């Protein structure tokens, strides 16, 4: 039976795919059947009756809904017949009976399917002149979304999205007849992390973006296709601006990355370019105070400051810290400046050398859709990559993919059938060893002596067997397991398990930051050059020397931690681009103060920038062109959407001017004048990016292949790391990313201040033992410091641990870090 069939619409024969919906086949033939409830990403439901067409049946013509009718061979459809046209007119007239027609003040007006369909298919006038039903207007479903029940046409799209994609059916259809409304269960919540998608889906102006309300009319917006830079997924979105002010973000379809969804942080946290706290002018420390200076003076001060240090202490006394939030171009040029102009390999970023990440990130985000098993170790996609979490939920529901989780918290995805292991910090390698042993035993392979002692139980055996039997597992580990004390043992042992199960090549790493992958690809690492080529590789150095017309130092530099630790010793000057060590770990503030010279290139006057000798105001990613590389190695463009604030300048422009001022004799190697040209240079410097151009990155970006770097994996013994107990500090610290934190982006978006629970979390038994209740103020102490915050009692927390999210205002997790960080022993009191 062939899949290609022929159907007839209005006497015209058109080809169609067997089983596809009539609306889709008709659209391909250029017939746009109007729909409200139907949506390509949602299951058909046939709620609105807008798509009525006539079908020839053995018993005569019948009206059917095109959006719920699969095509079949020989089907004869009348779209333009009098009865079909009349039926659609009647439907529209009925929909409009109670619609308030307040288009002039409706945010949807101008891009509203109801307006468009009324113009194309509507009756023009109504039989009804009676008073309309009055329902709730301006009704907040959450702090982010407003509902206007009068405008609602009951198409169910929002209800279905939350059910089908988020698996959080928090909206429902209540009451009956003309009184029917969409609402939450009384006192219920709408807290899905991608809840804003229902605004995009709403075919009328019933659901509107609360923070962006009334700030735009669709026809006056400049629409810049861009990406989101809040996490490593790199969701595609559109930045809508007017008068160089960003008015809103809406999702943009890229099936390979984010389907058609963006998370609420990506949608609503769009105030970064209008924040009054943004740096607008270079600052220099004059007589002990940071004072505004001109760009020329600021750059001159940077040049003389760095030159002075280089002359007194040599180039190795200078270091630079890049950022996983900055673009590829910024990181590339910072590396080029440090290595090629200053002559130092002291280069790293926070998620750099210390993070035991797979250099290739994760194999493919799209693979999540087809997974038959999902294995998550030390990562929480719901908090770290909410749109990936929706894809995983869908795989768990629609494909019955088992979900296996190893995490110190019981994360959201643990609600799906599978296995959830909650090892306490320090216990992970033993668990993974047991899983490895069970896998080897299950496959009948010999068990090495060092694994013989691993304890096993029924759940471990079941999880091991499930992974070994999976055909298309989607496997991720994350930063919670990949850095700090004991991380080497955890990563080695989890790699052993996945390798033993035969899926070594599917083990991916979930990068929490937008450009962690790209910063590494750009050589923002002490021992790797652009393109992930080792510094030790003489040929790689030679290639770069030819491109950069310079000589490169071959001695590996210091890491992020190393540079900060040496700030009182051999490091005398630091250049920080988008890094805020002083805010993340107060102990580092003292170290930065000891430097001879500190340059900070930043968006805001951060704790670190306040210590600087020169502060350079950078343009945010919406204000300058750039590329970002997401967790699946997809290089995507983020073109300029609005003008930079004040005198802020794009990172690449600052660094280009700086290099030309520092070394006028090397100006020829620093002559690019656009990001497109700079990106062309990057593709030469980083062979992984060969073949890409600014233009051919297109709307959807391009990936460099997973196979471009091959890793040989086998089950290997590793060196265990024992985490000593500390009776004075009975709890174990667990840190992690949380979507709603107090980071830079959210601090700049006042509308989002109330989102999420910003507190340390304790298990109810620990809280009860300490006499604590949710909302109480607590002080967490470790051997190195203390933080004050509030407590939230949560039974998803492993007893004996305390969970502290990164980036809580006034409670930096780094204050508690000691040599066992991030698994430090802490106490409450």
């Amino acid at each position, binding site marked *: 039976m062939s899949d290609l069939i022929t159907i007839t619409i209005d006497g015209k024969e058109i080809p169609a795919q067997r089983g596809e919906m009539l609306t889709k086949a008709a659209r391909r033939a250029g017939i746009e059947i109007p729909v409200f409830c139907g949506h390509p990403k949602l299951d058909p439901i046939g709620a609105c009756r807008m798509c009525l067409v006539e079908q020839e049946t053995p018993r005569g013509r019948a009206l059917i809904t095109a959006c719920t009718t699969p095509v079949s061979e020989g089907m004869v459809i009348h779209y333009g017949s009098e009865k079909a046209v009349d039926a659609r007119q009647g439907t529209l007239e009925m929909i409009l009976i109670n619609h308030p027609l307040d288009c002039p003040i409706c945010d949807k007006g101008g891009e509203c399917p109801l307006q468009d369909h009324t113009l194309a298919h509507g009756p023009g006038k109504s039989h009804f002149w009676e008073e309309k039903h009055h329902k709730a207007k301006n009704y907040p479903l959450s702090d982010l979304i407003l509902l206007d029940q009068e405008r609602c046409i009951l198409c169910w799209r929002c*209800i279905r999205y939350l*059910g089908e994609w988020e698996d959080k*059916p*928090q*909206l*429902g*259809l*209540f*009451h*009956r007849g003309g009184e029917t409304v969409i609402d*939450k*269960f*009384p*006192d*219920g919540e709408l807290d899905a992390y991608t809840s804003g998608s229902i605004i995009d889906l709403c075919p009328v102006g019933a659901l509107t973006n609360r923070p962006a309300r009334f700030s735009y009319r669709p026809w006056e917006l400049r629409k810049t296709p861009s990406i989101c830079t809040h996490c490593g997924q790199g969701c595609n979105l559109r930045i809508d601006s007017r008068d160089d002010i960003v008015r809103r973000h809406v999702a943009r379809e890229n099936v390979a990355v984010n389907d058609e969804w963006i998370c609420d942080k990506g949608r609503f946290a769009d105030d970064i370019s209008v924040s009054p706290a943004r740096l607008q002018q270079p600052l220099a420390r004059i007589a002990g105070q940071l004072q505004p200076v001109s760009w020329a003076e600021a750059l001159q001060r940077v040049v003389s400051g760095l030159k002075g240090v280089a002359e007194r202490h040599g180039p190795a006394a200078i270091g630079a810290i890049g950022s996983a939030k900055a673009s590829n171009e910024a990181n590339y040029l910072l590396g080029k400046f440090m290595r090629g102009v200053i002559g130092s390999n002291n280069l790293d970023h926070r998620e750099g050398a210390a993070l035991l990440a797979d250099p290739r990130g994760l194999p493919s985000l799209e693979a999540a859709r087809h997974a038959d098993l999902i294995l998550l170790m030390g990562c929480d996609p719901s908090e770290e990559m909410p749109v990936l979490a929706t894809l995983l939920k869908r795989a768990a529901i629609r494909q019955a993919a088992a979900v296996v989780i190893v995490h110190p918290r019981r994360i959201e995805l643990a609600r799906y059938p599978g296995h959830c292991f909650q090892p306490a910090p320090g216990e992970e390698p033993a668990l993974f060893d047991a899983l490895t042993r069970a896998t080897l035993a299950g496959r009948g392979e010999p068990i090495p002596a060092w694994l013989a002692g691993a304890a096993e139980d029924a759940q471990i055996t079941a999880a091991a067997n499930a992974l070994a039997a999976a055909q298309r597992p989607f496997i991720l580990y994350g930063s919670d397991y990949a850095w700090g004390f004991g991380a080497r043992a955890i990563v080695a042992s989890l790699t052993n398990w996945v390798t033993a199960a035969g899926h070594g090549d599917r083990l991916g790493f979930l990068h929490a930051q937008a450009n962690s992958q790209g910063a590494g690809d750009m050589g923002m690492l002490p021992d790797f050059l652009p393109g992930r080529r080792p510094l030790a590789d003489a040929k790689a150095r030679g290639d770069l020397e030819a491109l950069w017309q310079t000589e490169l130092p071959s001695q590996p530099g210091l890491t992020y931690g190393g540079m900060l630790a040496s700030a009182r010793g051999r490091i005398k000057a630091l250049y920080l681009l988008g890094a805020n060590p002083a805010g993340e770990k107060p102990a580092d503030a003292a170290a930065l103060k000891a430097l001879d010279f500190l340059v900070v290139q930043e968006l805001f006057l951060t704790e670190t920038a306040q210590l600087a000798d020169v502060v350079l105001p950078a343009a945010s990613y919406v204000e300058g062109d750039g590329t970002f590389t997401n967790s699946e190695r997809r290089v995507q463009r983020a073109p300029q959407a609005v003008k930079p604030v004040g005198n802020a300048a794009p990172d690449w422009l600052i660094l280009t001017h700086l290099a030309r001022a520092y070394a006028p004799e090397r100006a020829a190697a620093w002559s690019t004048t656009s990001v497109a040209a700079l990106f062309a240079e990057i593709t030469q410097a980083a062979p992984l990016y060969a073949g890409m151009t600014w233009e051919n990155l297109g709307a959807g970006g391009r990936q460099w292949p997973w196979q471009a770097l091959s890793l040989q994996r086998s089950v290997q013994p590793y060196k265990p790391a024992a985490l000593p107990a500390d009776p004075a500090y009975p709890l174990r610290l667990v840190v992690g990313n949380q979507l709603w934190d107090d980071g830079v982006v959210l601090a700049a978006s006042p509308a989002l201040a109330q989102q999420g629970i910003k507190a340390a979390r304790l298990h109810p038994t620990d809280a009860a033992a300490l006499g604590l209740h949710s909302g109480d103020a607590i002080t967490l102490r470790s051997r190195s410091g203390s933080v004050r915050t509030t407590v939230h009692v949560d039974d998803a927390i492993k007893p004996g641990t305390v969970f502290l999210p990164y980036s809580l205002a006034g409670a930096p997790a780094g204050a508690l870090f000691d040599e066992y960080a991030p698994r430090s022993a802490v106490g409450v009191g």
Partner: protein
Amino acid sequence: MDMQSHAGVDLDLLEDVLAQYQGQRGALIPILQKAQDVYGYLPPQVLQRIARSTGVAVSKVYGVATFYAQFYLQKRGRHILKLCDGTACHVKGTPVLATALEDHFGVQPGQTTEDGALTVEVVYCLGSCALAPVAVLDGQVMGRMRQEMLVRTVQKQVGAAGGEEV
């Protein structure tokens, strides 16, 4: 509907009903009916408990409960007065009866008196149009109602059992 006004609902009374339908698909309406038999109406906690037990989203359970006129989401009075407002009764003066009830008992259709004695509901046609306007007090059909007669009958009935719990 806020949770405060539904305090003191004993969810244990629901366990027998839930146990009876455990694992049965499509049993939501019978469960809601039995739950209403137990509590007299459907408080939100009960709906949440039913949702948890049946695996149906609470938004759907609430959708069903609000769709059918047979389910009540607010506490009802000890006496129920149904006023017919179908076409015939409406023409013959139901609105006047409703005004009279409001004047005497302080309740509009759909409301319950503050002491919980009387609930007034409007229904649409009881099939006794020849007797219009029709009122039904605690199951007893009363035809050709006039204001004074209705008020007197209700006063008598409510007064008789007014103070006691039923």
